[in-house]
């Protein structure tokens, strides 16, 4: 608790003790009134002062004014009726203050909790000077400097490891709890925690441009982009209070007049004025106004702990309404790494065929050649290869161990006049001819990520209606991948522009309420990320373009995180709606009961403070998203 809160607590306790003591004090008349004024002022002097200031500044309808009128009114009635029952008014003031104190405490607490959750800000960087380590402000470290990160310390700035090897804990960045190994030559992103060895890192960015700064900036500003729910509540709050005040006034004046003139009954002014004052107690919109932004704040905080960065409350809201998810293929559902997937129609042993292919391709650095060399897996003896000829767009021919070897696509075989067998599998086909005869073909394809299939299923389970894949690859590859993952639709052979067009077409066809999310790896799909209702970039650790263009950034490149992000947003929005309905509902019921004379001021203040406390506690629930 801070100083202000402690002072408030003391005031509340003092007023409460006095109130109880006065209950047993046998004083009557004006003396009793004066005695009771003491705890009243102790509990609520600041409210009365603020109400006065509000009137001076022509801002009449604020909660201070309402509380002041309600309690002062109740005291006045007690005085007028000579009942001597001042307890109610003071208790109302007291409970109101308890509510305010709780709110301030709870908000402060969750503010700190969530900041701690995102506490990846490094406080210093170590620079070696004359054999000693000196701690400096990371802001002052220039690009290209060598910094030292000891075990247990956070990596402060992005860079490349020049010396040492270690295990890194990236959980603050990705939510992934498995540690990663890092060695000299590896790139390293700030925000990781160095666990085992001492690392020397050459920085490649300034602190302000480093991953950790970007993430902090993004998360801290996220709740400033307000959602529709928040806008609705602030508008509602602006209308609600004056509306309740007007009804209170009507309730105080109209029924007595009607009773008097229409029915000739006694007016019963005290009764109706008391009911009107009850109205005023319920008129504070606090519960709503605090719980909605708190829910979003907690939701965004909880999500970032899981490696899902949401750039704003509004995006969290849109994400929860996602009905169509469009994926980019390469790098999102697949690893973007090519691998030999099969060898068909081979006349010689697979191993032998691969060896020929690897040797023939040994001079090439094309990803496909690399994948063949990797599949072969042994050291290549280049002296066995001669006369390598690369025929661009077709393949290579070479002489291996004295035999001519040709490795390439259909065109190369046509060119050489060698009959070949087409492949039914999807992927890139490398036909092989050895000594002028067809020797079979190698199928190379991009590997599907291990969780892609589960991810698509999880999305369906989370209520996504349609999953679509867009790819620049051939139709066969696209359809095969889509079928194996259980995707609903696939559009292949698309150029980057074509992807934007396809997404636009889908945006036109869908209904307004069903939102479309596009998931990409941030590399050359920035325009699509921007165009979709919500752009999700994956595996964005260190990729500025992706962080820039997307609305939601998944730090990990695991596609399961997409479903997780949607579930987190659903939970958060669920809590928001619960709070809206619950708080408005209870208030309306209390207003009704108050108008009928069933609810007294005690019930009103309990409803007001109770609803606020429950709504705040419910809002904090949005933080817990680990097991979704």
């Amino acid at each position: 608790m801070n100083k202000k809160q402690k002072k408030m607590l003391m005031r509340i306790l003092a007023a409460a003790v006095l109130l109880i003591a006065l209950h047993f004090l046998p004083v009557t008349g004006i003396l009793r009134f004066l005695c009771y004024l003491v705890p009243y002022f102790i509990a609520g002097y600041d409210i009365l002062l603020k109400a006065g200031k509000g009137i001076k500044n022509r801002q009449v309808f604020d909660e201070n004014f309402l509380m002041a009128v309600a309690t002062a009114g109740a005291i006045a009635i007690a005085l007028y009726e000579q009942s001597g029952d001042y307890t109610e008014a003071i208790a109302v003031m007291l409970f109101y203050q308890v509510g305010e104190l709780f709110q301030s405490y709870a908000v402060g607490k969750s503010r700190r909790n969530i900041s701690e959750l995102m506490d990846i800000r490094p406080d210093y960087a170590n620079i070696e000077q004359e054999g000693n380590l000196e701690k400096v402000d990371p802001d002052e470290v220039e690009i290209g400097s060598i910094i030292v990160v000891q075990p247990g310390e956070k990596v402060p700035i992005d860079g490349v490891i020049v010396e040492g090897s270690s295990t890194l804990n990236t959980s603050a960045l990705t939510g992934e709890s498995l540690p990663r190994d890092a060695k000299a030559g590896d790139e390293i992103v700030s925000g990781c925690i160095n666990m085992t060895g001492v690392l020397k890192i050459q920085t490649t960015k300034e602190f302000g441009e480093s991953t950790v700064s970007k993430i902090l900036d993004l998360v801290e500003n996220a709740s400033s982009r307000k959602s529709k729910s928040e806008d609705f509540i602030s508008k509602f709050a602006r209308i609600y209070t004056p509306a309740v005040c007007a009804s209170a006034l009507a309730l105080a004046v109209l029924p007595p007049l009607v009773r008097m003139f229409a029915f000739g009954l006694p007016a019963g002014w005290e009764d109706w004025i008391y009911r009107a004052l009850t109205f005023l107690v319920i008129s504070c919109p606090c519960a709503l106004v605090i719980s909605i932004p708190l829910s979003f704040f907690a939701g965004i905080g909880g999500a970032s702990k899981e490696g899902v960065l949401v750039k704003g409350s509004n995006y969290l809201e849109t994400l929860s309404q996602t009905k169509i998810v469009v994926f980019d293929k390469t790098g999102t559902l697949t690893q973007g790494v090519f691998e030999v997937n099969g060898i068909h129609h081979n006349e010689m042993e697979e191993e032998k065929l691969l060896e020929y292919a690897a040797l023939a391709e040994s001079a090439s650095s094309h990803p496909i050649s690399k994948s063949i060399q990797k599949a072969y897996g042994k050291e290549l003896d280049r002296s066995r290869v001669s006369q390598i000829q690369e025929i661009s767009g077709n393949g290579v021919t070479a002489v291996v161990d004295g035999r001519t070897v040709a490795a390439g696509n259909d065109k190369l075989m046509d060119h050489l006049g060698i009959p070949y067998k087409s492949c039914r599998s999807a992927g890139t086909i490398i036909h092989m001819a050895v000594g002028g005869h067809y020797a079979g073909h190698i199928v190379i394809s991009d590997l599907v990520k291990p969780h892609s299939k589960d991810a698509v299923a999880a999305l369906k389970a989370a209520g996504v209606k349609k999953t679509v894949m867009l790819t620049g690859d051939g139709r066969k590859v696209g359809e095969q991948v889509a079928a194996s993952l259980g995707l609903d639709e696939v559009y292949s052979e698309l150029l980057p522009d074509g992807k934007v067009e396809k997404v636009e077409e889908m945006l036109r066809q869908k209904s307004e309420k069903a939102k479309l999310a596009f998931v990409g790896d941030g590399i050359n799909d920035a325009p699509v990320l921007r165009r979709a209702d919500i752009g999700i970039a994956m595996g964005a650790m260190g990729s500025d373009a992706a962080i820039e263009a997307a609305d939601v950034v998944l730090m990990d490149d695991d596609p399961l995180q997409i479903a997780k992000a949607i579930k987190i947003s659903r939970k958060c929005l669920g809590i928001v709606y619960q709070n809206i309905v619950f708080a408005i509902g209870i208030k309306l019921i209390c207003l009704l009961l108050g108008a009928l004379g069933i609810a007294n001021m005690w019930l009103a203040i309990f409803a007001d403070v109770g609803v606020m406390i429950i709504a705040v506690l419910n809002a904090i629930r949005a933080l817990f998203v680990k097991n979704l």
Partner: protein
Amino acid sequence: MKKTYKIDVDCANCANKMEHAAKNTAGVKDATVNFMTLKMIVEFEEGQEPKAVMQDVLKNCKKVESDCEIFF
């Protein structure tokens, strides 16, 4: 031009009122108050001197919520 200021305010509704008051200050194009992070983001109109405008913003905010502070 956009600038971010640290603020101090006790209740969420007061923060909303501050936002409303800041938005309606001359020289301010748009303003957002983030109660959870206690920050005010003010977008100034072209050619306005932030310091001078912020004086007015603070004055207007004080009017709606006497117990608030903006640090600039």
